[in-house]
């Protein structure tokens, strides 16, 4: 019996060991495996809340226009051409589009203007999660369908901003045949959806839409993009398959926005950077974007990894800045802000935190946008002596104990130059910049209290004006130059956390937002950079460079300065060597 039992245990053990082997990873050559650091969480196209979900959305759905980094502008995607625009006497914009005649849904029916009208109604349907869409596209007041051409329509937009023209084409188009096969919303007008009570047809539609549970079943709403979601294991991976008969394949010479090469995309969710690096080196993933500087440099220096991997860096539109709250008494004077800016040693910071892989800038326009970047200004230099001079000019006096004081304006107690420096806790680059600044400020007799803070608490403090100086990142893009949320008086209490408010600056921001001519826009933007350089509501430390490491078999990976840092649909894996 004992012998039988021991043999049984041995047999089970051997069987277990045999099944422990990983299946042969025969990744098809046209499959690309990409690392994500977080799950998309919610794939309802009305709720795109993080960059993973945004990537799925852009591969699944098409909008009328698409942002093109190469063109530094929006380009036609589902639209046949850039829209024509007419301005009416009552400050309305009439933006007219025509859809591509080749555009088809997965069931072969053409994509028509009534699909766009349907999408706008979904985006305004009470009972659905439409709050963000209403905030972003609420300026589209109505849609007028062309009675003679089923593909032509006009969007009636409020406000004269040229950005509204581009933004009017930047929402995903949904298939009416899937969500509303009987066309029950066709009789409902867009304006009716914005009134209470909601029309009965809209309430019934909202119920049907919610029942689809698109947040976790994206496959139930096929879009007109090149890919469809095939598997989604929350928190583990998501796979997408290219449609074998995508409508854009019939175009004789499809533009880049309508090209898609890999047959399958597998997104592996690996939150930890070190694990993701190991997975890349082991060949368990093919592409790792937005790689930390230290890991990237280490791989670049390894001969074995250089054989297996290719490395890319590209300038992004995301910058790290030291942001002043100009409402604080000690920071009201621009000279004080300039003096404190001179205490950041930017080259040392770039070397220390980014392994030298970042680009300093004079202001909030990326140096890669050469037409708009003000290259006549000089990069702020690290100079405690210049900082001391500027402080004296601002009325600060050095005390015998080395600190700085300034008499108060209304005869109150003198002001002491002491600051709190807030930043998101756990961010190594922010912490290094804070420590560097603290050391330089202390040497000059300025007390700096470091305040690493949890992200949402910090956001709340910034909005309430409870910080002095903060280190944070700002993200821009090459398409839109409307700085109203960031620096206009109207943005105070919302996106303008510096509290910066100057009539001249407000005027320039409005002129830039209204400028349509590139030459005029360039002139205004250069002037705006000079103004900010003088006023210094924040000082730009550096623009980040996005780092991408990819397997050799992917060939040349198209990288971009916009997140996620690559264009998955445009990767063309190399044919395997026979």
């Amino acid at each position, binding site marked *: 019996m004992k012998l039988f039992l021991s043999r049984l245990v041995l047999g089970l053990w051997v069987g277990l*060991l045999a099944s422990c082997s990983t299946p042969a990873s025969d990744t098809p050559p046209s499959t690309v495996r990409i690392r994500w650091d977080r799950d998309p969480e919610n794939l309802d196209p009305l709720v795109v809340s993080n960059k993973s979900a945004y990537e799925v959305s852009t591969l699944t759905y098409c909008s009328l226009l698409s942002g093109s980094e190469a063109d530094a502008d929006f380009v036609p995607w589902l639209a046949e051409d850039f829209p024509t625009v007419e301005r009416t006497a009552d400050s309305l914009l009439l933006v007219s589009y025509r859809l591509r005649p080749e555009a088809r849904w997965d069931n072969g029916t053409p994509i028509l203007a009534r699909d766009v009208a349907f999408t706008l109604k979904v985006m305004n349907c009470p009972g659905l*999660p439409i709050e*963000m869409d209403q905030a*972003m596209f609420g300026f589209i007041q109505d849609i007028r369908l062309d009675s003679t051409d089923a593909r032509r329509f006009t969007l009636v937009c409020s406000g004269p901003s040229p950005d509204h023209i581009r933004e009017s084409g930047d929402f995903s188009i949904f298939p009416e045949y899937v969500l509303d096969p009987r066309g029950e919303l066709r009789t409902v007008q867009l304006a009716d959806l914005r009134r209470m009570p909601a029309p009965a047809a809209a309430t019934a539609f909202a119920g049907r839409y919610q029942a689809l549970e698109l947040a976790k079943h994206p496959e139930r709403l096929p879009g007109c993009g090149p890919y469809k979601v095939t598997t989604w294991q929350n928190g*583990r991976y998501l796979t997408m398959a290219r449609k074998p008969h995508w409508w854009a394949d019939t175009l004789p010479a499809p533009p880049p926005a309508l090209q898609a090469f890999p047959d399958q995309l597998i997104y*592996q969710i*690996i939150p930890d950077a070190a694990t993701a690096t190991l997975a890349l*080196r082991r060949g368990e993933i093919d592409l790792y974007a937005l790689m930390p500087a230290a890991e990237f440099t280490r791989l670049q220096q390894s001969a074995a990894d250089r054989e297996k991997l290719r490395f890319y860096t590209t300038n992004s539109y995301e910058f790290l800045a030291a942001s002043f709250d100009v409402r604080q008494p000690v920071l009201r004077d621009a000279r004080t802000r300039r003096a404190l800016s001179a205490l950041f040693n930017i080259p040392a910071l770039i070397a220390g935190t980014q392994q030298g892989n970042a680009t300093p800038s004079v202001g909030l326009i990326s140096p890669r946008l050469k037409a708009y970047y003000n290259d006549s200004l000089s990069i702020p230099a690290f100079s405690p002596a210049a900082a001391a001079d500027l402080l004296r000019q601002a009325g600060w006096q050095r005390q015998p104990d080395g600190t700085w004081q300034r008499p108060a304006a209304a005869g109150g107690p003198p002001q002491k130059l002491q600051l709190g420096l807030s930043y998101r806790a756990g961010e190594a680059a922010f912490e290094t910049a804070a420590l560097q600044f603290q050391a330089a400020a202390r040497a000059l007799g300025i007390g700096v209290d470091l305040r690493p803070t949890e992200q949402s608490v910090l956001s709340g403090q910034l909005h309430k004006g409870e910080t002095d100086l903060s280190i944070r990142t700002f993200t821009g893009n090459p398409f839109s130059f409307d700085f109203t949320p960031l620096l206009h008086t109207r*943005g105070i209490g919302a*996106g303008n956390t510096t509290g910066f408010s100057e009539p001249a600056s407000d005027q320039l921001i409005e002129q830039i937002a209204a400028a349509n001519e590139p030459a005029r826009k360039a002139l205004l933007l250069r002037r705006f950079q000079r103004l900010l350089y003088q006023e210094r509501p924040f000082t730009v430390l550096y623009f980040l460079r996005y780092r991408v490491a990819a397997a050799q078999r992917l060939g040349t990976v198209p990288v971009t300065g916009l997140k996620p840092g690559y264009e998955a649909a445009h990767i063309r894996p190399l044919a395997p060597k026979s």
Partner: protein
Amino acid sequence: MVRAVLRRTLRLLLAAWLTLSALFLVSRASTDPTAFLQATFSNNTRLGGQTEQAALTQRLLGRYRLDRPLFYASWGTATGWRWHGFHNQYHQWATGLLRGELGRSYRQDETVTELLTRALRYTLPLTLLAAVGSGALAFWLALGFSYRPRLRRLGLALLHGVQSLPLFLVAVGLLLLLANPDTLAWFPAFGLGLDSDAGAWWQYPGRTLYYLALPTVSLVIVSLPVLVVQLDGAIQRELAQPYVATARAKGASRRRTVRHHVLRNALLPVLALLPELLPGLVAGSVVVEFLFALPGMGRLLAEAAATQDYPVLLGAVGLVALVRLAAQALTDVLYQFIDPRIRLL
């Protein structure tokens, strides 16, 4: 006996209700209800003016029913006590809880119950494997130490050394040692593989074991020293008792004495570890799940905390608290089972 069990169950339910209510009220009262919206706003450059953002905030708070008062009554220095009736967040949450609903996640638009169930599917195999592994190993080592006193000193010194290592270091060390192309690439670096590569059904247990090997071993290594030291201490105390000398005098071998006489008595102090161990089984391990890319309870809790997803946070913390209460009750029962002289009920 029945009355005693009923009384104990009622006390357990009351304690659970009070714990969950306190968690709900403290977490909501001490935080800004708009905090979880801030990240959305800071990532969106299209939301221009203050009025626009304020209106959006109000609409989103309405969607999540956070625009209601927190409790039935509130106190304000200017207004004094104010009665809000049943139209409040606590009432809505409590009535939902009575129906077995824990609410919906702000981020994922799924019920908290679904999210917890899914996370437990990944956490329980990992933590149970680790618990069984470390428990079995602890028994084996503690018994071995009692048979071979010379090994005991060396083994305990080694275990005290291991105890000083943080879990993160152990897990990274294993990853770099056993899943690294530069050293030994024996195990996968992350996750549980693709379901499409799963193979035949009979391969599933082996495949899961293969993927969970490094996370499990990490947990076993860090939990083993406490168990061994505790059990070994208890065995050593029992070995000094007169009944051991009697058993040996009657001719029982040291091994037989330990197994048949000492072990049962030595288990009593180890039972005190149960209320610590069982909540850990459902709470998962943030470090291990984060490092090995496993979407279990630890990661769910950490992500919910980082994004202020309070329904998920409350559901997960509440579950852990409930298991802790249940573990305490179970420990009491086990005490009586092992030593019938103990009367707790």
